[in-house]
């Protein structure tokens, strides 16, 4: 009995440390200390749990902890910063898997004896869990380019999904009244998994920041539901914190694209691209030497990175270029759009990896008033986030999305792999403006050529 109180005290300490830990993330300076507190909280919770009276054998627990720690640390240490979104997606799937398996094991133990409260909690647990497993795996496959990043759709998809969802919820409700119906429990898990697959398959790669946040939220809610089922408050608290963090991030991401959550989830973005009219005009191609001269004699240069920076792994070369310019007295700023990259904050981490100080990273609202006073904007592998159609053309699929207004700077240089439309398939009139120069080719190669050319300018 005493162990019970000891465990509860451990959980209260753990919950407090988690909260302080997340509070630390409000500033980069306090963030590392905060995370140490949170990790300590996790240790306290785990050690406390090991005293649980139901635990009779430690052999498999130790094996599991060792195997998990090994895989987890190898994954975390080996992964490149460019592949962060993939790691996050697979990690969400693991978390949801754990919650779902605990739910299944609890169900097997309780079966027909389960009270309606516990059955409801278990139901939410396995529903959120299996949707997250399926959704995160698809997101992982898309990010890793195992499957195509473009939206996959079929006719009547939304109706099918809604029917599937309603049917799954129907089974869930029936289980609350007759929890003994085992087959239905497993059918429900299977259907929720299918729903998760179908939910993320039609979402395009450019919308991944929203998907990642949403899956984050579901994974947290699955943990919170586990807490309800096991009457465990630390699970409820930690799961809810995670769930709400993901929820807030998905709302922020949707706002940054001026789209509703429903539109992201059911809009199959990019499918409408064929209906657009092609823009008349020519794209002006420029050479490395022209660009180098413009940059070298500019007063202020703004660099706008996008996912192309990550795929080209060009963050270090960008920093080199920026440093070379700064040595010449040019002011260099980085403009980060909230949905640039494939997960929230992706670009910030990449630039931090390349030793760019965070004081030169500017948010959308901070940098836009300065665009008029900027001599050259350099767009690296970004497209929609600088598309002036979002501001000017109410018929554009991305109308109303806040953009970084590079077109207001005196010159715009766009680094791009080829002449294609990019991931979303939307035409970008920026590329056809007279003050825009296109520099085609691999971003990293172009940038290192630029560094040399600027040094000689």
């Amino acid at each position, binding site marked *: 009995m005493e162990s019970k109180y000891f465990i509860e005290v451990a959980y209260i300490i753990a919950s407090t440390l988690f909260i302080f830990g997340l509070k630390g993330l409000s500033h980069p300076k306090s963030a590392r200390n905060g995370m140490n507190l949170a990790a300590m909280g996790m240790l306290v919770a*785990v050690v406390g749990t090991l005293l649980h009276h139901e635990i009779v054998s430690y052999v*498999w*627990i130790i094996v599991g902890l060792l195997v*998990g720690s090994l895989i987890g640390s190898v994954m975390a240490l080996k992964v490149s910063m460019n592949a962060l979104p993939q790691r996050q997606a697979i*990690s969400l799937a*693991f978390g949801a898997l754990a919650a779902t*398996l605990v739910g299944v094991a609890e169900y097997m133990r309780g079966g027909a004896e389960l009270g309606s409260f516990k059955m409801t909690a278990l139901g939410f647990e396995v529903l959120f869990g299996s949707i997250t497993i399926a959704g995160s795996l698809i997101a992982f496959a898309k990010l890793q380019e195992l499957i195509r990043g473009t939206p996959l759709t079929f006719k009547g998809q939304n109706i099918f999904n809604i029917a599937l969802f309603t049917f799954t919820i129907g089974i869930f409700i029936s289980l609350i009244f007759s929890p003994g119906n085992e087959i239905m429990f497993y059918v429900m898990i299977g259907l929720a998994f299918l729903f998760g697959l179908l939910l993320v398959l039609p979402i395009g790669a450019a919308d991944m920041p929203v998907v990642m946040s949403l899956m984050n939220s579901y994974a947290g809610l699955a943990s919170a539901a586990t807490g309800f089922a096991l009457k465990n*408050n630390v699970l409820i608290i930690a799961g809810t*914190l995670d769930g709400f963090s993901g929820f807030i991030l998905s709302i922020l991401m949707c706002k940054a694209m001026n789209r509703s959550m429903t539109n992201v989830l059911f809009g199959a973005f990019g499918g409408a691209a064929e209906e657009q009219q092609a823009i008349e005009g020519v794209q002006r191609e420029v050479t490395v030497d022209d660009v180098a001269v413009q940059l070298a004699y500019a007063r202020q240069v703004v660099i706008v990175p996008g996912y192309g920076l990550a795929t080209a792994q060009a963050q270090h070369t960008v920093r080199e270029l920026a440093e070379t310019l700064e040595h010449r007295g040019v002011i260099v700023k980085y403009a980060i759009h909230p949905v640039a990259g494939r997960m929230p904050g992706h670009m910030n981490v990449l630039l931090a990896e390349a030793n760019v100080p965070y004081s030169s990273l500017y948010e959308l609202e901070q940098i836009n008033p300065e665009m008029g006073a900027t001599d050259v904007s350099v767009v690296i592998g970004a497209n929609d986030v600088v598309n002036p159609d979002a501001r000017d053309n109410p018929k554009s699929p991305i109308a109303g999305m806040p953009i970084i207004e590079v077109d207001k700077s005196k010159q715009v240089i766009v680094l791009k792999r080829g002449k294609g439309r990019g991931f979303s398939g939307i035409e970008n009139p920026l590329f056809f403006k007279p003050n825009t120069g296109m520099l085609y080719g691999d971003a990293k190669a172009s940038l290192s050529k630029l560094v040399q050319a600027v040094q000689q300018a």
Partner: protein
Amino acid sequence: MSVDILISSLYVFVLAAFLGYQIISRVPPLLHTPLMAATNAISGISLVGSLVTAGAEHSTLSTILGVIAVIAATINVVGGFTITERMLKMFQDKLPSDSKDKKEEKNS
């Protein structure tokens, strides 16, 4: 009894939700990726549920499920905290060379 537990659990849930909202809205976009990795690691707390399932020896199948759950949750916890630390280590205020330059200026 069951109703009491439901109500107290809901209290915890609702308060945690408000607290979460307050804390998370203060995290700057700069740190959104570390935030996701960190909350993901913290939600690996479902590890404590998995531990009990793995060690309770209710049945062979539930032990197997429990062990797999322990592995998956541990990957999340250890991996999540490790990568968050890796990321946060990289965020710095000024370039190291800059601060040196400034010190030299002060000295001279």
